[in-house]
């Protein structure tokens, strides 16, 4: 039984079957990649997982609780953090504040009227955030305004913001989309480092095979809204169905 269980999920947009009978199980402490060509339904599936879309039928269970119909912040409070295609950070705030906000969210929940306390007196939160920044080698940048950093650093910061909450599942939505090769490799190294350092479950939606094969423990191949195969990277590499899905008829 995996920590994330997707069972029989269907989603239609008008005449288009975006997801058809998707079954997926992500086991704890593994990196599970979901790949597929453009239009395979990867993003739709992700939006279902984070509560942005409600499927027509089927269930999505996280640790025994349904995530369907919940607000994104409730899903986060259940223990799912999300990394976006383009880093979503608090661009006007300093790096340390960016990391302190998730710490507050973890400690205080979705809302707390803590208007009289001072951020300056929250020593635990600050230490927690600084330790996290140290972990991703960004401690020297803590007082920088986040918007002036390089794209690679923004990605690193977003990762830190997710990891500091110690999520039980980290969702990554094409973390290397639109990146140059060097940036892509940096991101892969960062993810590998994270995977080695801590027990973490990750689900990666990705287009780039290179990223997937160097990280994933298991891979699900999605095509036209349905999972084709699910297996280890080694087996997926040579799988005829995968070649067909990615390369079309020409592969025969």
């Amino acid at each position, binding site marked *: 039984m995996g920590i994330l269980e997707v069972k029989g999920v269907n989603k239609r947009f008008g005449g288009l079957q975006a997801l058809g009978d998707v079954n997926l199980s992500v086991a704890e402490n593994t990196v599970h990649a979901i790949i597929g060509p453009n239009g395979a339904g990867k993003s739709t599936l992700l939006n279902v997982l*984070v509560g942005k879309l409600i499927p027509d039928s089927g269930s999505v269970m996280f640790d025994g609780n349904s995530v369907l119909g919940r*607000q*994104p*912040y409730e899903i*986060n*409070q259940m223990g799912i*953090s*999300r990394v*976006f295609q383009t880093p*979503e*950070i*608090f*661009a*006007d*705030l300093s790096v340390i*504040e960016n990391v*302190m*906000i*998730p710490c*507050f*969210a*973890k400690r*205080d*929940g*979705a*809302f*707390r*009227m*803590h*208007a*009289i*306390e*001072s*951020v*300056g007196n*929250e020593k635990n939160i600050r230490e927690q955030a600084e330790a996290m920044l140290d972990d991703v080698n960004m401690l020297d940048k803590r007082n920088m305004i986040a918007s002036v950093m390089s794209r690679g650093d923004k990605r690193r910061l977003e990762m830190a*913001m997710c990891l500091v*909450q110690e999520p039980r599942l980290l969702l990554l939505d094409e973390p290397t989309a639109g990146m140059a090769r060097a940036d892509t490799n940096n991101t892969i190294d960062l993810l590998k480092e994270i995977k080695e350092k801590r027990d973490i479950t990750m689900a990666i939606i990705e287009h780039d095979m290179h990223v997937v094969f160097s990280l994933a423990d298991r891979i699900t191949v999605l095509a036209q809204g349905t999972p084709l195969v699910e297996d280890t990277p080694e087996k997926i590499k040579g799988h005829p169905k995968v070649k067909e899905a990615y390369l079309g008829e020409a592969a025969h």
Partner: protein
Amino acid sequence: MLGLDTKDTRLLIIVAIMVMAAPILLNPFPADSAMAQFNAGYPDLMQRFVIFGIFAIGFNILFGLTGYLSFGHAAFLGMGSYAAVWMFKLLSYNVVPAILLSVIVAAAFSVVIGYISLRRSGIYFSILTLAFAQMSYALAYSVLTPITNGETGLQVYTNDPQILMGENSPNVPHLFGIEMRGTADLELGAWTFTFGNGYYLAALMMLLSFYISLRIFRSPFGLMLRAVKSNQNRLTFTGVSPKPYTLAAFVISGMYAGLAGGLLAAMDPLTGAERMQWTASGEVVLMTILGGAGTLIGPVLGAGLIKYLENIFSKINDGILHQWFAFMPDGLEDFMVTILHPFIGKGWHLTLGLIFMAIVIFLPGGLVEGGQRIGRLFKRRKTDDASSATTKPAE
């Protein structure tokens, strides 16, 4: 001190000294000099400075921190004024119940209006708040005449109940006997300084408001509000529900507006629907942006500047202009007066508009940014001096 760090404590102390000494600081010109018309140190005007300062401080908690631009905050100010005058009519001229009720009424209405308006963000939020404010204005102006006294405006009549009114109670707003209109004059040579009771009550309320706003800015709550402005999407995916935060900010700023309205009534116990009009809502937006949205002291400066222009520029007339340019040849004098005529008197809005444009274009951070730039200029000069001093021996 008071739960603030040293920098904020210093700021609070500076503001407190300025506010307390305002009757002297704002009266730099001797009473019978030609420049005396630029003096702002009389209670009526100073009350406006601090009361609209409170209004703008509160507005800044919503707009400056969360980025939600309300175009209807004058509605809460107007409700506060009506509530206060009703307290005068029903109980007595004591300002304490009046001010308390004005804050409570504004809070109650801002919960409802905020809850509905905050279902949308951006321009739609602004339009919703504007719509609510205009509805309130229209209701106060006509439909609710029994409560608001319509276009005549609400005031206290001699046959009002005033059940707590004692035999010797003053017949004007007072704080346990201290009359709001009471003043003490201090004559020093050519200068006359007037210290008004009402001003000092309003000034103390402003300092309290400023202190609370300081605490909010530095709190985790304030951090969350800034996060709402910066990236609401990230905030929800970080496990925070933005809506209660924005609603809390909306209600707090509504209460500030109610307090300002209550104080306006406490200074002068009558009110009318025009306090709720959209131009009044727009004015607080101008104040906040002019001073520097999202900064601590900016809104107070902006409120002061606008109220100063409104009261001083609008009093300059052609006669005064002729006096100023009397040294010029007649033709040139008339020419100068004709040129400047649209910018003074009733045309003070034109001056305000030009100043506003200049600030938005050249100083997007408002007056506070201007101050910071000047400060930096001096610092750079100092460090230049210091570095040249240290490099000299090396030569």
